């Protein structure tokens, strides 16, 4: 449904050239939920704007529903729904007016496609006369989705729909996306929350304009090939600092209530590290081997690239 071939994007900013995207290639199948996972500034929004015909790439080609995003932008616009990262509905129109407006722009009516948005719109119905600008974050996001869906698009582009949204509303939002993909709509969605990656059929990790990896979430984490161990102790902060001092350790970061530690050598005997930590006065040090999560793998890939400096 979506094909990107070696997409590149370079912005000119004063005298500097800023590379936003480098050789980005990917494919999204019909009915698939594809997650683009990466931090702010990775190039996610530029890719969204190119695929939705709002920005001309400086290199490469892309097709949505078989139509070229540059030469056939009109055809592309008819079959895509796009929800930008920044709330872009009309703040001074009511909930109902916004929806009616977007339906008319696409030459259809709210009634004709009501089935598509029914479950989401019912939650909004009590506020249908409220100005969109006066809605809460969660409600704005639901209205944005309704407006992006009202013309029955074949592909839905959602740029960070869950940023700044609490965990419960995020879960509800993902349930909706699952249902839409079940109806055959392809969903291209970006998020900075790594835990949401598990909810996608396939994901692409993007960092500094480059796609680092594309795969199913479960398969992707299996690529993590370093020894990975969780640690816990009395004083987590000093434990973290002391573990980082060790030459055998490649990286050490906090993950919830434990530390995740990777080693240069797959065969490293962890008891050795524990003994050294106890010599330094750490008490009650526990450790256990763990399977890598998406965040572990993402951090390994980016750590390899920027030498652990994280910027």
């Amino acid at each position, binding site marked *: 449904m979506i094909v990107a071939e070696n997409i590149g994007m370079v912005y000119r900013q004063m005298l500097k050239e800023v590379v936003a995207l480098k050789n980005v290639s990917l494919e999204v199948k019909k009915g698939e939920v594809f997650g683009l996972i990466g931090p702010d500034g990775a190039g996610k929004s530029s890719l969204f704007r190119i695929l939705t015909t709002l920005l001309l790439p400086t290199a490469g080609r892309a097709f949505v529903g078989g139509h070229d995003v540059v030469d056939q932008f009109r055809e592309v616009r008819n079959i895509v729904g796009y929800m930008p990262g920044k709330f872009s509905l009309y703040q001074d129109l009511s909930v109902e007016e916004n929806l009616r407006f977007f339906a008319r722009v696409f030459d259809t009516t709210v009634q004709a496609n009501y089935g598509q948005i029914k479950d989401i719109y019912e939650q909004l119905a009590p506020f249908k006369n409220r100005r969109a600008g006066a809605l809460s974050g969660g409600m704005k996001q639901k209205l944005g989705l309704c407006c992006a869906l009202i013309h029955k698009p074949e592909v839905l582009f959602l740029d960070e729909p869950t940023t700044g949204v609490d965990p419960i509303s995020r879960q509800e939002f993902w349930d909706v996306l699952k249902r839409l993909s079940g109806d055959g709509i392809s969903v291209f969605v970006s998020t*900075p929350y790594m835990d949401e990656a598990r909810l996608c059929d396939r994901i692409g990790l993007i960092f500094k304009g480059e796609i680092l990896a594309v795969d199913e979430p479960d398969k992707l984490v299996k690529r993590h090939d370093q020894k990975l161990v969780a640690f816990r102790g009395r004083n987590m902060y000093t434990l973290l600092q002391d573990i980082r001092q060790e030459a055998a350790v490649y990286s050490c970061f906090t993950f919830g*209530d434990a530390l995740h530690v990777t080693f240069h050598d797959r065969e490293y005997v962890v008891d050795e590290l524990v003994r050294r930590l106890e010599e330094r006065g750490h008490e009650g040090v526990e450790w256990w081997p763990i399977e890598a999560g998406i965040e572990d793998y993402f951090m390994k890939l980016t750590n390899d690239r920027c030498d652990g400096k*994280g910027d």
Partner: protein
Amino acid sequence: MEKVIEVERLAKKFGSFTAVDHISFEVYRGEIFGFLGANGAGKTTAMRMLCGLSKPSFGTGRVVGFDISRETEKIKSRIGYMSQKFSLYETLTVRENIRLYGGIYGMSRADIRKKMDLVLSDLGLSEERNTLVRLLPQGVKQRLAFSVATFHEPQIVFLDEPTGGVDPAVRRMFWELIYQAAANGITVFVTTHYMDEAEYCDRVSIMVDGRIEALDTPSALKQRYGVPGMQEVFYLLARKAQRKDG
């Protein structure tokens, strides 16, 4: 332990709507206090009252020893504030940002100059002092924002979703700064939607429909609800919300 925040039956009403519904709690010096809740639960309203930006409709509170209804200016000069949405002026240089904030908090020019060199060398930014903030890498920007928020050596720093949208390594390095500040006796009051970050706090409160539904250490909360992580604790409590998030 010394209390830096203590509020009793604090409430805020907007017309007939009770945004914050008579909450009482205390925060101690050097503590990392996580202030969690779903969108619309009343976190921002509560935080604005604590910072002296909004008058309570009911109840009393003291922040760093001053009354939140009557001594708001004294509170404002003794706290630091940072949010992901806004913290630094992108079109000012590193030095200009620090000088601006130091001045706003009433520091003398001599004090600002003295502290500036210290902070810049701490951050490894001595060479970049005249660089525009928008040209700095994200991780550096974030560390600078935190240093600016704590530049006037406040007793407490309020962090409103400080890590939204940043990459995982930067997010963690930011938390290491928080640990450092807390170890130096600065109290950290932080909101976040990342539940793994809730685990890093000394104590956590969870707001539901304007009330504090639970307040304890992460491990005590997990034990009480018999679940493995803070994510599950949050789900259990926040799902009970009756308030329609409008």
